[in-house]
């Protein structure tokens, strides 16, 4: 592996970790703080200022910015499967933090997701779209 490829891979792993963690915890805090019902449009806005929801929103903004940074060099078809490890973390967090049961079916699903993430993250480079890049520049 060349040093350029190694640099890109390390950068991709660091950024993908931030993307995944900010998404998992952002959604968790949002759900925790969300009121039972949102009767009118104003309720959507005021809900954003509930402490847990605000914290969730801040994390989701961090998620979006880190995802934008990641997509500035990595392919979407790479980022999508790799960041899906978040589903596994949500299930595991439910078990550890909320003492939820993980059924055999769920463990099977977790294994499939991990296998999918491993296939893409180990088996392909983050950036393959030299052709796409040229096309995008040509049409600009």
């Amino acid at each position, binding site marked *: 592996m060349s040093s350029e490829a190694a640099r890109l891979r390390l950068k991709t792993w660091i950024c993908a970790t931030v993307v995944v963690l900010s998404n998992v915890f952002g959604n968790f805090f949002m759900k925790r703080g969300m009121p039972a019902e949102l009767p009118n449009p104003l309720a*959507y806005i005021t809900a954003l200022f509930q402490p847990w929801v605000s914290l969730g929103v801040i994390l989701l903004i961090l998620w979006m910015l880190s995802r934008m940074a990641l997509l500035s060099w990595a392919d979407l078809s790479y980022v999508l499967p790799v960041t899906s490890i978040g589903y596994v973390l949500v299930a595991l967090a439910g078990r550890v933090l909320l003492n939820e049961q993980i059924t055999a079916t769920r463990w099977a699903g977790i294994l499939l997701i991990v296998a999918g993430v491993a296939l893409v993250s180990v088996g392909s480079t983050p950036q393959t779209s030299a052709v796409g890049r040229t096309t995008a520049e040509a049409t600009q």
Partner: protein
Amino acid sequence: MKWLWIAVIVAATTVGEVLQALGMRRHGEIRDFRPGALGRAMAVLAQNRFVIGSVIAMAVSFFAYMGLLTISDLSFAVPATAVTYVLETILAKYVLKEHVNWLRWAGASLVIFGVALVSL
């Protein structure tokens, strides 16, 4: 009602994320992560039409997701929106012109089945 929310979320998320990838690709790789440089990059990106479009679409998706969470559990909401993986991988190939090799198709398929099983 639940399925209407899902349809809105899936459409808005797919459009938003593909536009985001398109906008960031045109911007090029972010190499400098110092605060000042990040601020300048954000100022440039705020004028990028694709990025603006993606933020609008993702805001729609976000509020629809809030609406969905009030009437359903996360364990239904999250997997139901996983269908965006299929749509976005297809669009990555045809719109973003990425080389989606068999490993990526296989990986995306495993993830979709996995997400479905986790939600059962």
